[in-house]
């Protein structure tokens, strides 16, 4: 518990500072980068439930983002729903999709799960690109502004605060759920699936809960982000978006809320900060990514709640060149849980 306090403090301080940003600048560009950062952090927090807490590698998370954004866009533009009202169907569709994809695949090894989720992301994008209801490749444009009881959210400042509230909500959920019964079950599954099962945790059910939880958060973010963009089209929801979210999480630190926040800031702000280098900025971004991973492989703000916990994607065999490890490590590290479904 003692370890939690300073981190909670850091997160609070971050949100307090973030809330004050518009007091210092009314520069439209800063604020639009600001709400995009918040959007990405929200998505990273959603993915954190799936990958960080439950240890399920998901390469198609942008699909849920797309489901939320498209549901909102279709219902508000074609059927004149208010934006707020579209959130509910968006979340419902996302949950149904999560169950459809999750039920058959959550028993797979994590590599296979990765490719199936990747495929799901591609499928959602392809559907959006091919259906006339979703506007085909042009997408949907003229998405109305968000109104919350007569307050019209239209300017970057307004979106900045709306998404900040969502972010705050996700942070609270993430922190609270982690220490709840369901959160402990997730961490337990992530650490050791066999042990979790032996303890009586219904692992498939809890994995599905994690997948559904991530879906809800992704869809919610999409619903609120669509009116900020005003026009959405399939390319924004492809594999690269899924990877960006995953990158945010990996750079910041898997399973760590403050990590998701820092990671989200880096993946959005860094490419923007190097904007004047147009063609070289992604080169720099790639280099930074490699350097961060080489020097801090567990992320910049790794989770450290459990002493000596087992990292979900740790390689099956202990490191080679350590003088200390071999015997003990081999003896004490069972074959990774991810391979258990091979029987």
């Amino acid at each position, binding site marked *: 518990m003692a370890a939690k306090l300073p981190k909670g403090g850091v997160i609070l301080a971050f949100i307090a500072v973030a809330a004050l940003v518009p007091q210092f600048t009314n520069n439209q560009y800063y604020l639009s980068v600001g709400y995009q950062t918040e959007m990405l952090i929200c998505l990273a927090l959603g993915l954190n439930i799936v990958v960080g807490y439950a240890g399920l590698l998901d390469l198609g998370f942008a699909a849920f983002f797309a489901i939320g954004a498209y549901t909102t866009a279709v219902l508000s533009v074609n059927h004149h729903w208010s934006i707020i009202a579209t959130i509910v169907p968006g979340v419902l569709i996302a949950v149904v999709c999560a169950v459809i994809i999750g039920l058959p*695949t959550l028993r797979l090894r994590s590599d*296979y799960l990765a490719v199936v989720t990747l495929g799901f992301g591609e499928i959602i994008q392809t559907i959006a690109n091919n259906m006339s209801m979703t506007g085909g490749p042009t997408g949907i444009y003229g998405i109305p502004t968000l109104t919350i009881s007569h307050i019209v959210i239209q300017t970057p400042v307004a979106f900045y605060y709306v998404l900040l509230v969502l972010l705050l909500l996700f942070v609270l959920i993430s922190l609270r759920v982690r220490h709840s019964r369901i959160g402990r079950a997730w961490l337990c599954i992530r650490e050791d699936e066999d042990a979790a099962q032996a303890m009586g945790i219904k692992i498939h059910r809890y994995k599905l809960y994690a997948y559904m939880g991530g879906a809800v958060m992704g869809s919610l973010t999409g619903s609120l982000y669509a009116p900020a963009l005003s026009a959405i089209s399939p390319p924004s929801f492809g594999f690269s978006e899924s990877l960006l979210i995953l*990158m945010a999480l*990996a750079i910041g630190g898997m399973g760590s809320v403050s990590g998701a926040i820092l990671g989200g800031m880096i993946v959005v702000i860094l490419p923007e900060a190097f904007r004047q280098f147009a063609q070289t900025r992604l080169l720099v971004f790639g280099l930074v990514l490699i350097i961060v*991973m080489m020097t801090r492989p567990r992320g910049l703000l790794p989770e450290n709640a459990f002493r000596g916990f087992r990292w979900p994607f740790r390689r099956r065999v202990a490191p080679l060149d350590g003088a200390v490890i071999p015997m003990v490590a081999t003896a004490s590290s069972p074959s990774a849980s991810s391979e258990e479904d091979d029987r």
Partner: protein
Amino acid sequence: MTLLMSEILNGLFLGAFFGLVAVGYSLVYGILRLINFAHGDFFMVAAFVAYTILGSSIVGHGHMVWFTVAWVGLLVMVATGLLAVLANRLVYHPMRRAALLSLMIAALGLSQVLENGVLNIPGWGSAYLTFPVTSPPNGFTVLQTNFSWFQLIIVLIAGFLSLGVYLLVGRTLIGKAMRAVSEDRIAAVLMGINVDLVIAVVFFIGGALAGAAAVMTGVYYGQINYLMGWTVGLEAFTAAVLGGIGNIGGAVLGGVVLGIAQSVGTGWFGAEWAIVVTFVALVLLLWLRPTGILGERVARRM
């Protein structure tokens, strides 16, 4: 019916490409358990290197061209193999104690660096470049489907290379070392196997195969672009998983199955739905056989 047959034949040809790149994916995965997202970009860099070498004045005329293409192909294979070894040495090797997910993210970073590196090299850049040597279209007809002789050569080379790797892994000492490292790294070290060397060899083979695929792609399709590696890599990754990742024969088989699934899917539903057909087939297959088509051996090995 003839349409279906010709779609299947086309799929077989496509599968040869997917398979060749997929073998590289699968090899690296088998040893390191790493999904090497940069693998497709090794392929892309190889295509650009071949473009530059073939574009310079050394290319002869008439039949000499094909002689040149052959040795440039070998040269590019070696160069791409070395590039992969270098990437391993600079990025993956220092990270060998890190979590696999960190390695994967580093691979994504490397992929970005390679793509945007090529984008920033003068003379390469973002344009669609026309390959200096392209294959002649004359060929033969099977079941009302035209194939060029070069397509046949591609399939033969792909098959030959895959078979070579298969035999290398299955029948030679270094292959035995690879299998040992893949099975139990610690035990392999204790048996006196030079694990770093084995890993380097695996990266070299994977890179060389991607290089061969790149030269053949350039000559056959005649066009290259700095983003060409991404799609190929993704398809190869899917093929590797489909066949049972970590398994050489599986990778080739996965490539062929994926090629046919895409081709037939296109014929039935239209190309816009091909990727949906592919992935739905993949989900169904994994649901029935959670370890891929030839995944059994992998499972037993663990």
